């Protein structure tokens, strides 16, 4: 029995090594399918209409409560609590809003399209489901070593200028990192990287519970999520700040 175990291990290792060879790298579509399958399957993802992730964000050594809520229609809302004072940004699918009393924005204000560009640039459903039908194109790019782990690179683009590259763990096919250029006026052109880990199962879906964001290589925020709700009830207009 022991003999079989080591044989199996050997086979596994050599397959993993082979998979890193560019010539045998899976196609972007194969990677996309493997990723969707590994994280719960297409049906399970399509059944998700909204998510709410609660946790904490660390910035410059200080920690603040954080809630990220998202829903179909590319709606997104980020709530932070800084010493009892809110910092809220949201996007309701067409318009972005901000409330940030510590910066003098004491009432919710609409953001310009330019200001909310990064918020708007976050599709709710992964681009790797119904990719083509939704207008996305997948392109293989050279994988790279992400935090000591080899990856496959897949660039996702669409006709509206969406452009994000995912790096998938060659063994487990979950994304370890994403790269995109910021579109917001404050950080225009900065290379924004997101590092994902602590994948955990939530109602049958594998969700990264830890995300570290870097801008031009410098860490700007680390997020740890402790509670994830799938399809939580949300008030109507939850994504429109008033």
């Amino acid at each position: 029995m022991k003999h079989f175990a080591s044989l199996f291990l050997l086979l596994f290792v050599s397959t993993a090594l082979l998979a890193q060879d560019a010539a045998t790298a899976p196609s972007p579509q194969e990677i996309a399918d493997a990723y969707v399958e590994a994280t719960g399957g297409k049906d399970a993802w399509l059944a998700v209409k909204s998510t709410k992730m609660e946790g904490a964000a660390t910035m410059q050594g200080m920690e603040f409560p954080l809630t990220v809520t998202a829903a179909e229609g590319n709606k997104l809302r980020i709530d932070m609590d800084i010493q009892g004072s809110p910092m809220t940004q949201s996007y309701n699918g067409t318009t972005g809003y901000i409330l940030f009393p510590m910066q003098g924005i004491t009432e919710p204000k609409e953001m310009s399209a330019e200001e909310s560009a990064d918020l708007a640039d976050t599709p709710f459903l992964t681009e790797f489901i119904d990719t083509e039908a939704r207008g996305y194109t997948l392109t293989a790019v050279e994988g790279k070593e992400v935090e000591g782990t080899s990856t496959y690179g897949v660039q996702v683009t669409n006709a509206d200028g969406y452009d994000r590259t995912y790096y998938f763990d060659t063994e487990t096919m979950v994304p370890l990192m994403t790269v995109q250029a910021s579109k917001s006026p404050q950080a225009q052109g900065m290379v924004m990287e997101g590092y994902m880990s602590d994948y955990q199962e939530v109602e049958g879906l594998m969700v990264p519970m830890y995300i570290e964001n870097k801008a031009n290589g410098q860490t700007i925020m680390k997020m740890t999520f402790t509670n994830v709700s799938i399809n939580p009830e949300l008030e109507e207009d939850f994504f429109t700040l008033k």
Partner: protein
Amino acid sequence: MAVVTAVQAQEFSTTTALFGDLQARQIGPATMSGRVSCLAVDPTDANTVYVGAGGGGVWRTTDGGSSIQPVFDDYSQSIGAIALAPSNPKVVYVGTGEPWVRNSVSVGTGVYRSTDGGNRWQSLGLDSTERISGIVVHPEDENVVYVAALGPLWSDGSQRGVFKTTDGGQTWQRVLYLDESTGAASISMDPERPDVLFVGMWSHRRTPYGFDSGYKGSSGLFRTTDGGENWDKLTKGLPDETLGRIGVAVAPSNGEIVYAAVETGTKETKGMYRSADGGESWSMIDKSFNSQVRPFYFASLAVDPSNDSIVAKCGLTAIISETAGRLWRDFPNHVHSDYHAIWFDPADGKHMLVGTDGGVYESHDRGRSFRMWNNLPISQFYHVSVDNAKPYRVYGGLQDNGSWYGPSQSAGGITNADWLVTYGGDGFYSFRHPTKPHFVFSEAQGGALGRWDERTGRSKSIAPYRDAATDKLRYNWNAPIHLSADGERLYFASQYLYRSADEGDSWQRISPDLTTNDTAYQKQYQSGGLSIDNSGAENYTTIYTVAESPLEAETIWVGTDDGNLQLSRDGGENWELVTPDDSDLPRGAWITFVDPSPHDPATALVTFDAHRTGDQTPYLYRTTDAGQSWTRLMDEAITGYALSVRQDPVNPDLLYLGTEFGLYISLDGGLSWAPFRNGVPMVGIRDMVIHPREADLVLATHGRGSIILDDLEALRQLTPDIMGNGITFLRPDTTYFYDGSGGGAGRLSGSGHFFGPNPSQDARILYYADKRHTFGKMYVEVYRDTQLIRTLQAGKSAGLNSVSLPITLEKPKSPPTDNNSARYGTMEGPSIQAGTYRVVLTKGKDTYETTFTVAPHPESPYPAADREAQRELLLRLYDDVEQVAYLHEVLKRVAVQADTLGAAELLDRARTLQAELVFSGGDGYVNEGEQLGESVTQLYGAVSNFPGRPSASQVAEAERLRGEVAGVEGEVGELLEAVRVLNEGLSAEQRIVYPDKESFLSAK
């Protein structure tokens, strides 16, 4: 000859992944900036500028220079040309390899393209062109591009001439080629007729001992009118003699007008020419100094796109004519000399940018006055040293920018103003005397050694002179200075080695001529070819490196630029030639660096560099028997010719190597190597030093200033035996409470200034992980005995991870307020107590434990008793803050429920007390009220901000506030008594409820 690599020795191999998230920091400086070789500006947006540096990569600003970032760190940092596609300025082409071929010039790796404005790059090949002098893009088609490849400088090569692509660089066609020594030195396209291009072809060659512009005689000015299919050599009106470097520019507004700077060997014909018939015929328009000066270094021209009579030429000083070349004026002398790039704003010809050996300058009056961009840290260090100050300071000499020193850290970040100059000219080695610290030894090119005295700011020239027994002294451009660690022995070398025991006031010659002394190669005065260029840059058969063993003062290593490695073991009485006898090592390779081992006097690491004969192979050797035998250390991972090397003074297997393409580290004594890229671009590293006290690796980069890697303690523990154990904690140092300056902020000087980052002051937990963590939870908990005080996010990377431990408790739960300063008051928790803490790292189901210790710094001005007094008071205030927060919460709950019940009196009492406790409303600025809650939180903030003993007033105020809190407590108690009475008459569902304090505090 032994050659050892990891493969044959053992399984362990150094990889970049092992270094994990260890980060180096680039401290600049930007105050003198550095050589800019080219500029490119978005034709539709003058605020978007790409700056190409001679050795510091590509920098991009989108706000006219207010902020600027490097965007090309993963590739060769020597930049020759940048071009944006006029039809789509997001498409950017970069040609690597600077074309201003001074003796110290770096080398490129081909052409790259970005389609997203410089965020991401793709190699387009042409990777053996070494130097690119120009790129032009078709005005309507972003995929039609011409590349002027200067080609190899130090050898023959066919990868030169003009290359054309019509598919965005997927395939190239060489459309203009003359011979193996003649490259394309300048290219200009008529934007109205994009099939018309002009190219200056240049025959030239550098050797270690000379430069020849003109060389084989094939230089010339060429024109195509059919997109490169056919070329005409233009001669009418141009000098009928051997030509050298030619710079050419077509007027963008009028293709008939073309300007050319033409090098010849005669004063009468060398200078600026102009054609008014599209290049058919030419006439000379100027032969003043800056039209003729150093053509190999200054050959760039620019014509104002809105006026074909306005033309500017780079020079020692740039010159500009507004009269089609009839009359010229110099640019002002408040701009650094040595211009390499000029840009005119197509929308406003008075708006100009220039690139010089001292950075980028901007003019709004057509070159009459300029403002410098102060945020481009592209200084080119030749060498580096450190002193023993606290914090230590970094010393070095820079290409064309003198000798400087600056602090390794500074309140608010290391600024340009923190750097001070000790010497002029080109700077190289610079050392502060350890025991006579007012002295700094610095030098300028060609052996101009000086001793700067900080007390007066004066320098004394202290170079030795020849005597009857010596030949004329030959100093390398970069003559070696070496100072023993104790400051007792100062060394300086020409072809002879000198030693001084009195800070350079007198010298003893302790060697014969240690070079080959081959007189055939001693012809600096003839160097230059058509234009004599006797700057000292080609002085040859000289000593290039000197190093005394840190263990034995009598053991002295000398390396020359002509391949002699010499060793004395008796303080210079006798010398032995110990160059490795290895057929792989090219004869005459420069000995760029000797690192005598800090562990063993017979051991040394030596780098050899043969790139000046066209060989870019890294050569690194080690001896363990004082040069009797040598082992070559190599690894495919190392690229770029070798320039500097160090053995770690603590872990003998930890080695650092600097090449033209960055920093490499070996964890196994040189068997295997990996590039270190976290914060270290692919920049030339000419020198490095390890600070003995701080365990920092300080790099001299030739293009990105000085870079510091702070955490050698971590690397020292990354030994092969910690691998394979899942997670291994590294031994932590004791962490000291940081009492550092809160100053440094508040200089409201606007944007556009460089700040070098400081080292982290955090306590850190370092651990090595075999694999990246991707699935399941992973976090860190910190315990004092059994009490959990913090939960922290863990690093997830394979290799080295570093988790910053805030050495504070959680911040207090504070009452709500609309008073901003009160809100900031409780942003941080009190410092934890000095002592030892337990750290538990949880990864999935596994846990790993270690400890760390926090202590006041032994040199802190705040003794333990004072710290304890601060902590005690702060903890009392902490409790008061939370008590106020709790009382407020109770009142709030009671008020809401009383309102629902219609209990008006209760509601009124609760609201009144609430308003006494916290302030609400106002404007967050000048209409801010202060109630008891704000008083407590602000006092908390004030006491927390200062690590020493709180003032007596603060202590008294805390006492008074505690009394007030107790008073409110009493009133709330009475109110709650009324609630109790009211509740008695209510049903269970109706009763007013409120949390107890414990559950309030534990709720997030």
